[in-house]
């Protein structure tokens, strides 16, 4: 494997790690349900997406890459749906979004 591919792979993984860390921090520290869901989807979409890209490059196998991309699309659809449903149930339960106090 040429060295530049290894560099690209680790670069992608480090970007993924950044999104995982940021998303987890958001889930832990954000003030209300809606902003926490927003942080969560960053992990789901971007974190997993960059991991998938890095693994596909590393594997260098066409069929595996197809499976990985299918996995990512599934994750996108499922996280979007699940977070939409949770946010809607929160809204209907009468939970107001957090606002900065003046």
């Amino acid at each position, binding site marked *: 494997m040429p060295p530049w591919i290894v560099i690209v792979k680790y670069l992608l993984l480090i970007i993924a790690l950044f999104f995982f860390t940021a998303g987890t921090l958001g889930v832990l520290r954000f003030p209300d349900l809606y902003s926490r869901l927003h942080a969560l989807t960053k992990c789901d979409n971007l974190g997993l997406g960059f991991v998938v890209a890095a693994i596909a490059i590393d594997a260098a196998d066409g069929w595996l890459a197809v499976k990985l991309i299918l996995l990512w699309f*599934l994750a996108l*659809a*499922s996280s979007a*749906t699940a977070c*939409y449903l949770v946010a809607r149930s929160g809204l209907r339960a009468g939970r107001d979004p957090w606002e900065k106090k003046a």
Partner: protein
Amino acid sequence: MNDPILIDFLLAAGLVLLAGFSLRVVDLFTGVVTFIIFGLIMSVAWVRLQAPDLALAEAAIGSGITGALFLGAIRRLEESTPGSTTRPEYYSPVQRELYVVGVAGMSLALYLLGSALVPPLLEGPAGLAEPVSEAVGTAGARNPVTAIILNMRGYDTMLELVVLLLAWSGVCVLQGDLGRTNILPATGELAVLGAFVRFLRHPGILMAGYLIWVGGDEPGGAFQAGAMLGGVGALGLMAGGPTRPLYSGPGVRPVLIAGVAAFLLAGLSSIGTGGMFLEYRGEHAKALLLVIEIFSTLSIGLVLTLLFAACTFAPDPGRGAPARGGHS
């Protein structure tokens, strides 16, 4: 730093913590969430123990399906007896501290015991690994786990399918007629969920078929594939998919017993060709195992879907009663 030991340590510590937390939590809902997360971590732990077959089963059944069943059960409990899913905290702070110290001490003791006991065990005879790997060549599956589950210990697996059937008949006895279960039809506000399920069902069914097919050579098999089908079925029910026909239609019972029937017929056919009951050898073994797996997967998927529906949706005597009379 490129050493998995820290991963293994974190996994083990997380498992002990989550197990303890799920047991002593005061709110059942939190307990179930902890249980689901425990299953996900357990699945990664099985991977680290070089057991991807178990990881698949744990991810599908232990965490996915069982978690959904528990959540449905909690909802039903709260409907019938409000307040029954929480309990007062009956540990004093000192007892809780003692509990944490006790768990930590026991983990340490187990670790020391394990590190003393395991290396000698690894040097000793390797159990049944050798006879199994010798027999795998004629057992119809190159994945030894599949060969054991379906061929060498076929009785166990067949009876597991019977257990699932028994669970479903128990639900039928408690819940009454299948047609009485109230499943809400899809409404406009659930358009997103409906679209998601329509998007998911094809990859889901494809994945189930794929798991059956690779089960012969690589990790996979009927229970994992069945759990996959069960998950797709549960999502379909929640989005308001087919209701009555799925429950009390004429096709339900044949599919329910298809797995056991395939086992029995294949077992009898192996007697006919000179073997023992449920013993398959030679060139037909692979085809026989595949047939058994396909029918078992259908049965498992349907039982899990029906169990989920029975667990999640309350019976609706008002709407279902006339239909029931008309049906029978």
